[in-house]
């Protein structure tokens, strides 16, 4: 029986990785467990220049979910390479480096420099962050812009490129097909859903940014439906995410058509969630007498 999951640039010993933005650059979680137990690590978004992000409050709790508007806070390309990747290179776990920007040139620069370090397995294009006003999300909702950006980043990068799709669109399959034709090596889906919470006492939005991105168990059915729809249209590898917090959730994502999964918000409530899920998944597949975890995805959904 094997949990081995081989995706472009990411030879993973199991299909579970922490999701970008929910795990920093790994240092904090390394104090709690051995990061080599993970299938891969999706790093926090890197931008060309350092970003402070939005003012606080940056998070708000919602029913079975949370809104966040961090605003892509990160130390910038130079420090990500000199400090974060320098620390991460001691790990065997493959790295998926999430990149964001406000112009196509930003993305090209970050993609070229991060991939040239040879320390990352693949890039994840963040074209779906709902919390940055200057752009980002525009690339994620316009299929032509998404395709052009994918093409340019593919040219600039020396490693496989995954595109992280936004659920804040009418038909996500249009975006999926556009970036596939532009040469994407894989898809990550879904990013957060744009949402808002109002403090009825103060009559003000709870988040300083006004709106934010909804994550957590509340969005899982949307992620499942979108992966299911996209899987019918493409054979591209899919890293599925959106509210995963149990082993059964992982199985559901694989059935819907994901090849691997990313765990996001659950890391905030239980820092041990990823290694715990990996262990449970291993046990479950043994009980099922499965030879490979990929069988779940191959068998798919009975309809």
């Amino acid at each position: 029986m094997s949990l081995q999951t081989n995706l472009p640039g990411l030879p993973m010993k199991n299909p579970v990785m922490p999701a970008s933005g929910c795990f920093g650059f790994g240092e904090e979680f390394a104090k709690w467990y051995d990061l080599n137990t993970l299938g891969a690590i999706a790093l926090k978004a890197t931008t060309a220049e350092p970003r402070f992000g939005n003012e606080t409050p940056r998070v708000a709790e919602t029913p079975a979910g949370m809104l966040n508007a961090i605003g892509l806070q990160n130390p910038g390309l130079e420090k990500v390479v000199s400090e974060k990747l320098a620390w991460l290179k001691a790990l065997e776990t493959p790295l998926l480096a999430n990149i964001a920007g406000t112009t196509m040139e930003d993305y090209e620069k970050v993609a070229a420099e991060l991939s040239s370090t040879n320390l990352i397995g693949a890039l994840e294009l963040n074209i779906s962050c709902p919390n940055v006003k200057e752009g980002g999300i525009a690339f994620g909702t316009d299929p032509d812009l998404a395709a052009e950006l994918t093409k340019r980043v593919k040219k600039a990068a020396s490693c496989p490129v995954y595109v992280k799709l936004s659920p804040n669109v009418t038909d996500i399959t249009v975006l999926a097909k556009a970036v596939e034709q532009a040469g994407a090596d894989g898809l990550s889906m879904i990013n957060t859903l744009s949402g808002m919470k109002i403090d009825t006492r103060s009559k003000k939005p709870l988040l300083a940014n006004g709106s934010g991105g909804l994550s957590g168990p509340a969005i899982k059915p949307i992620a499942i439906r979108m992966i299911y729809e996209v899987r019918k249209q493409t054979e591209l590898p899919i890293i599925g995410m959106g509210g995963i917090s149990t082993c059964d959730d992982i199985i559901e994502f694989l059935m819907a058509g994901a090849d691997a999964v990313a765990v996001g918000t659950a890391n905030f409530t239980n820092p041990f969630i990823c290694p715990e899920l990996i262990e449970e998944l291993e046990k479950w597949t043994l009980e099922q007498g499965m030879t490979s975890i990929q069988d779940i995805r191959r068998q798919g959904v009975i309809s």
Partner: protein
Amino acid sequence: MKKENMTICSNQEIAENTFEMELTGALVQDIQAPGQFLHIKPSHENVPLLRRPLSICDADQRGGTLSIIYRTEGIGTNLLSKKTNGETVDVLGPLGNGFSLSDINQEQTALIVGGGVGVPPLYGLARELARKGVHVETVLGFSDAEALFYEDAFKETGNVYVSTVDGSAGQKGFVTDVIDQEDLAFDRLYACGPTPMLKALENKFPKAEGFISLEERMGCGIGACFACVCHTQTDPEGSEYRKVCSDGPVFPLREVVL
């Protein structure tokens, strides 16, 4: 630093909407300094989803217990308030950096200033300072007499002055009014409470040495999610920052923008 199901020894209302909970578990032994906090999951279900950061009020490492004090403000703290002895709560901790006691000596005076639910972490601090032989003066500010707690407990560590906004207990006014009226002098200042109170103290004592403890909405509580970030006073508009959960919650006076 552990994730543990701690057992509730007691959970009682000590002031209006204010509860004191005593917990026992192995992580008590990991506490390094007063001012550290626990990140508590009020429910094992998905609603409410997130943990609640609550300061450790006091710890008895020999007896293996600690206490927290919380106000019932929302769904999470209300759930906590209904828990009974013998039940367990999922706790992550101890987290963050507490108050440093290394730079104050026996002959010196510590002024402790607490406001509302900012008071609890200062109790463990007051006890540690008193144990060290430091002269402790405490000013506690509350909205009204109903909200007042721990006045007697603090008296075991030194003089205590109380202020309430409506004058229903102690002196009418804010903690800064009491400091003026009593003409309190000190070598080190330690404070925790509403941001306007902390700001008023920094403005009033621009050269004082000491520490403040901050409160902020948190996600993970361990430094990974960047929810509880604040600017520094040396780079108030720039990209320099401190995380309240893992760099704090205790900071030297004037280090972060309030």
